[in-house]
């Protein structure tokens, strides 16, 4: 077992009478691609939001590289090294693709706030180059100066990934990255995920699409009714009867 980069310890979270997460324990190993799967309503989004700091758990701890993550604001979480991709791609629709990627690059270099009011944007060639480079890797160079709002959903997803990657995050959280995608786009996303896998970045992917999960995951955890019912390698999970039961009566994975 390598270095544990994210540790979720005994997290409980209830919404009124509904217990969304109970006795949630999870350890994410550095450099691995860790998929979280589970039936609908299992609490995957809640778990992600707790990891991210958007939701404070009722009890329990979330530590990232030894640092407590509970109560941190979104920008602090990002500055700690966690980037995330949303279910619906969150990009800057009014800016160009290049500008979209430059913004995260600035944040990486300058921190949470910098009052560079009077210098010229056209002078920031280092940042511009970095952004171009990433867009090349992702394959969106042709549309450098296009309005991001006019992109297809698949392209928006790739742009969002580019925006995360330019910051070289220690941990990348992907919330159902292929949601709503056609087969073609899904395959392209899988290719992309495999490509960036090589960088050694730790990734947590929440997914419904088993094809995606089994193509890229090193480790799978199954979340059902707010708690982890099984955790292991893809092969271990495939044969696990508890998991089959959780997914509506033993349908084949």
């Amino acid at each position, binding site marked *: 077992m390598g270095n544990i980069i994210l540790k979720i310890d005994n997290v409980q979270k209830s919404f009124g009478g509904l217990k969304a997460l109970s006795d949630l324990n999870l350890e994410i190993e550095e450099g691995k691609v860790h998929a979280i799967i589970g039936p609908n309503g299992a609490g995957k989004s809640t778990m992600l939001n707790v990891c991210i700091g958007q939701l404070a758990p009722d009890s329990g701890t979330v530590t990232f590289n030894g640092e407590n993550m509970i109560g941190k604001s979104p920008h602090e979480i990002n500055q700690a090294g966690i980037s995330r991709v949303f279910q619906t791609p969150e990009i800057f629709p009014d800016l160009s693709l290049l500008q979209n990627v430059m913004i995260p690059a600035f944040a990486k270099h300058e921190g949470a*706030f910098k009052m560079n*009011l009077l210098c010229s944007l056209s002078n920031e060639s280092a940042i511009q180059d970095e952004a171009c480079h990433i867009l090349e890797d992702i394959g969106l160079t042709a549309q450098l100066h296009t309005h991001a709002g006019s992109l297809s959903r698949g392209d928006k997803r790739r742009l969002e990934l580019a925006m995360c990657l330019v910051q070289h995050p220690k941990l990348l959280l992907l919330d159902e990255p292929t949601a709503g995608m056609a087969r073609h786009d899904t395959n392209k996303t899988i290719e992309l995920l495999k490509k960036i896998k090589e960088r050694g970045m730790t990734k947590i992917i929440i997914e419904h699409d088993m094809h995606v999960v089994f193509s890229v995951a090193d480790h799978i955890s199954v979340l059902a009714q707010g708690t982890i019912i099984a955790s292991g390698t893809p092969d271990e999970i495939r044969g696990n009867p508890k998991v089959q039961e959780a997914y509506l009566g033993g349908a084949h994975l």
Partner: protein
Amino acid sequence: MKSPTIKNDMFVMLIFSAIILTMPIWLKPLGAGYPDLLQKFAIFGIFAVGYNILFGLTGYLSFGHAAFLGIGSYTAVWSFKLLTMNVLPALIFSVLLSGLFAMLIGFITLRRSGIYFSILTLAFAQMFYNLAYSVLTPITNGETGLQLARGDARIIDRLFSDAGEGLPSTNFFGLEMSGYSGFYVCAVLLIIAFFISQRIFHSPFGIKLRAIKSNQTRMKYTGYNTRPYLLTAFVISGMYAGLAGGLMAATDPLAGAERMQWTASGEVVLMTILGGVGTLIGPMLGVGIIKYFENIFSSLNDQALLQAYSFMPDWLANIMVTITSPFVGEGWHLTLGALFVLIVVFLPGGIMEGVGMIKKRFSKTQANTETGKL
């Protein structure tokens, strides 16, 4: 969207400065070349350009900026009364004090966004307005407004000369602030203000503000603490408003609370939107058009209208007068309101959007979708 280059910016600055400085000349044939109106163009131009830095770049709609106009005015008049008739200290204090208040108000109001923010700014503006007419009358002189008096201290002035007969006039190191010289002082300040705004628009800071407007959630999750960015934009626009208020008092040394009414904030919103929110010259265009037509329309009365329609047969002329008379003279505000509605409904991007659309029609079809560069 290609990034604007520094050379491009300098070019725009040059043209802008030339246009502004020669206003007395080219506005004369339009009947608008006289000092009072020219000063108004410059002063409201400063106000609108500053307002656009907040509203145009971040999308935060403030209805409270009239309060900073008021603060700037009152501060300036107090400087004239206590220190000197020279406008430089007055303007410096106006800017600093409104910046300070902007920081306080912004700190509170920016804790929310969207409608809540707008309502909060409205609430503050109303508070200031009410206080100015009631509790703060020692400072503001309530309804009568704050005026200069012969018996004012003017300590700095007294160091150099004795008090003369009658009321002294405001000056910029000897240059009278009334008439054309007054206009030129305002114009130079406008050019500087425009220059600063251009730099902000084209800086990394500016693009980050635009990103906040585009998707604030994403900004936060990208590692940005958006609050100080917004506060900076708010304070800067507040200082611009303070400068405008100070200049209002400098060119006409009277400060009244009616300047702080939120309808004054509404006016600057209209000017910004008419010209084109988020563009550099949009606000200036808006100011020019509104103030120019205000000048014409408010002085029209039924007689003047009859004259205008004199080429028509009498019965038609009378009908035309009845139709158009509610829109002129006292009814200028009606026209303004109607214009506001029409712009927001049909052309929310203002004149600059219209210009952009015309440009697109006439230029060759391009593969990329380009947006306005100014």
